[in-house]
């Protein structure tokens, strides 16, 4: 066999062997990985409403039990009604998670899916039942630069959002914004309730996140208004 043929035969054989090996591993491990992703999603929803703590470890069962008990997925219509999520053949609804404690709504959670600098940023923003105070914010997935924009996955950045307000004193929607640097230094005092500390070296990620949050929260504004006026009702047939 000539050198050329030998090289080609070897390369083809190698590709087949490695291809089979990797496909096998990926297929075999996929169910476990999907479980982890689902568990992580639930855990982040619970984190956003402070039902679990970042410093503690939980088993998949604990997370699942807590989630089943307290969190329910509904849909929000354009007029701000809360309806059962799955309603085929009707106008599309926005997904909204409700944290229900003793049959009253404690907080609502808005899924955040927005464009970052390099890819999608996904997470959850929880808002108190008063419709204006942020309960918590978590990031589940992002592809920002590690060490720069990637810092958005840090605890301090996410805890930054707690207690911020999405409306101003007059009750007008203003969203939550990421400041360029420290809020205390960069933002005039009357605007501070609507700003969170930014990450140094990640101005673009902050700007993208600010834009995304504003757009998404604006879409949910009809529901938020109803929450503010305390005119929210759960759909009659639940469960």
């Amino acid at each position, binding site marked *: 066999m000539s*050198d050329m043929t*030998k*090289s080609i035969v*070897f*390369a083809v054989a*190698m*590709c087949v062997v*490695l291809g089979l*090996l*990797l496909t096998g*591993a*990926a297929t075999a*491990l996929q169910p*476990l*990985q999907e479980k*982890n*992703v689902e*568990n*992580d999603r639930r855990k982040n929803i619970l984190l956003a409403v402070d039902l679990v703590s970042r410093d503690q470890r939980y088993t998949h069962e604990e997370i699942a039990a807590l989630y089943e008990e307290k969190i329910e997925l509904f849909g929000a219509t354009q007029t701000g009604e809360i309806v059962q999520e799955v309603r085929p053949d009707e106008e599309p609804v926005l997904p909204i998670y409700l944290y229900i404690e003793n049959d009253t709504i404690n907080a609502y959670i808005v899924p955040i899916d927005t464009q970052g600098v390099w890819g999608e940023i996904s997470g959850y923003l929880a808002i108190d039942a008063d419709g204006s105070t942020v309960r918590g914010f978590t990031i589940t997935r992002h592809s920002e630069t*590690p*060490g720069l924009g*990637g810092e958005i*996955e840090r605890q301090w950045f996410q805890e930054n959002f707690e207690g911020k307000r999405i409306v101003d004193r007059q009750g007008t929607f203003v969203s939550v914004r990421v400041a360029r640097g420290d809020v205390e230094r960069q933002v005039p005092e009357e605007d501070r309730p609507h700003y969170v500390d930014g990450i140094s070296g990640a101005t673009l990620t902050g700007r993208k996140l600010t834009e995304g949050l504003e757009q998404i929260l604006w879409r949910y504004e009809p529901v938020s208004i109803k929450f503010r006026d305390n005119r929210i009702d759960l759909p009659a047939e639940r469960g």
Partner: protein
Amino acid sequence: MKLTRTKAFKTFAGPAWTNNPINMQMLGICSALAVTIQLNTALVMTLAMTFVITMASLIISLMRNLIPDNIRIIVELAVIAALVVLTDEFLRAYYYEMSRMLSIFVGLIITNCIIMGRTEGFALGNPPHLAVMDGLGNGVGYGSVLLSVAFLRELFGSGSVFGYTVIPQSFYNVGYEDMGFMLLAPAAFIIIGLMAWLQKYLAGVDDDEA
């Protein structure tokens, strides 16, 4: 023959100490900067990297008489990449949180110059048992530096070891503060620099003569 005199031992001990890939050869610095903020991530990175380099060395060494010379670099890269993807899949299935913390750095093991260098420079020309020892030695050498750097950075940067707080509250009460600088990449650079200096001094290496 004493254990320390065998060729296998020397192959292992060389890269682990006197020819340490990070401190002596200044290879693999990029990942050493990135994953050494906490001991946990540094440990998992060490295990992943040791696994990949040992297995890659073994596989390449077993096939060393089969691999056509003109595509050997591609073959080495394919073997390393396949092992890294396997490691990544495994971490995502069994250690999900850890794999999220390490983010892209597991994938970047592929480009870790130590592995490529050892498969090309050693495994391709040596029998499997020596190649495995060489892989292990480099893994240990790389890992020991990683863990030392991570220990210092976590201790002085966050006041903890493996996530457990060790600096007592009374220290903070009298004015002690964690060094925020330790959490930034330049801190790792400085620590690695000091460690390289210390090790070269201890091992009696004189760069001017080399």
